[in-house]
């Protein structure tokens, strides 16, 4: 999915703001890809030195506290390292990806301050890894296609029953568990396995 402004060609954005906003978008994105593919610590150090001070300023503006700002840097940059493999260049610039991680961490921190809740809802409000969702959606959209039906038929019987029950017979997972005489947890894990398998089978063709 390509957004309106964040074309893969970063020069369009740069061109508009010559002199005003110098952002080395291409280098940052290349570094992030390098971290993702090779766990390259040098590339990460470059990302860190670029983003950390800016995240800190953002945090100070957001929380009015240096300690909380440093925590925001820690949370954000930890996710950038740990989740780098889940970044895909075709989804947008590295700056956008890091921004969403920072925004999410900041949202959760503010919620903790305001309502004393640690429910970390940001991940549900702004899912970072859209493809899970898109996949789920396109999975639903393509339910009627014969190709998918064929794939479903080829699943192990236990997984097939769960997929058919949930998606074709519109049963809830609880109803299905009762119907099949198995725990809800088992329904969930079979469904998860089945979806994973189907996703692999159907490959990238939904992108």
């Amino acid at each position, binding site marked *: 999915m390509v957004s309106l*402004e964040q074309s893969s060609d970063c020069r369009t954005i740069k061109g508009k703001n010559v002199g005003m906003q110098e952002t080395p978008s291409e280098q940052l994105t290349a570094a992030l890809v390098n971290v993702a593919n090779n766990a390259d610590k040098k590339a990460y150090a470059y990302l*860190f*030195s670029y983003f950390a*001070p800016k995240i800190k300023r953002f945090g100070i503006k957001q929380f009015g506290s240096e300690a909380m700002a440093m925590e925001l840097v820690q949370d954000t940059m930890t996710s950038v390292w740990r989740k*780098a493999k889940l970044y895909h260049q075709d989804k947008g610039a590295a700056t956008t990806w*890091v921004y969403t991680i920072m925004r*999410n961490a900041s949202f959760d921190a503010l919620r903790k301050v305001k309502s004393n809740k640690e429910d970390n809802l940001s991940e549900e409000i702004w*899912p970072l890894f859209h493809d899970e*969702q898109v996949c*789920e959606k396109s999975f639903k959209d393509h339910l009627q296609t014969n190709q998918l039906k064929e794939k479903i038929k080829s699943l192990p019987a236990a997984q097939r029953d769960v997929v058919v029950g949930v998606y074709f017979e519109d049963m809830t997972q609880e109803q299905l568990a009762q119907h099949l005489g198995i725990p809800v947890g088992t329904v969930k894990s079979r469904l998860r396995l089945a979806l994973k398998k189907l996703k692999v089978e159907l490959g990238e063709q939904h992108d």
Partner: protein
Amino acid sequence: MIKYHPSKQLMQKHVAGELPVGLSVAIAAHIELCGACKLELDALESKQAEAAFTNSGSYSEEAAESSTEEDLAFEAMMNDITQLDMSSEMVPRVPQMFDYQDKSVQLPRAIAALKLGSFINAGKVSRARFELDEGPLRSSLLHIKPGGEIPEHTHTGFELTLLLDGSFEDESGSYVPGDFIMLDGRHNHTPKTEEGCLCFTLVDSALHFNKGLSKLLNPIGNLIY
């Protein structure tokens, strides 16, 4: 066709992470149902990212004069982080269903994630609160049986309704799932539904019921929303 979308201003605050949870949940749920707003979200995110992370922007000028102390703190932090394992798993999400009135409906992800209290019934209307603890802001899941109606009322603050399933009508027209209907204190309305409906609602203060009998029903307003 979805006709009612979050305003541009709301979208900007949503992208910046500056809205109350209930409101951002509603916008996220709308976006899950609305391709146009999804595109707008992506565009706004990349714009705000540019503004936050430019080398000459407001955050970096001050940052330029970093202290040795800060440099050392950052270096220690970075070394700690790169000791951590990288994760690569992606867990496929199983859609969450909600059952009401003999139907089973897939809930938008952000709504499905919230903790829901128990349902209270008032005639054809059933309401359960989400346990968000946001003071005067109250987020609820509301369903109304076919032929149900909510007495005419206005609000001192705002009332947001996100229609999730079914349909309803009021003085301004009829609504379809995905419609994001924001009303403020100037509006009053009498929503009714022929086929029944399921909604996410958010109100920021007490409701006022306007007409004769409805006034007597005012306590119901607090019950419903």
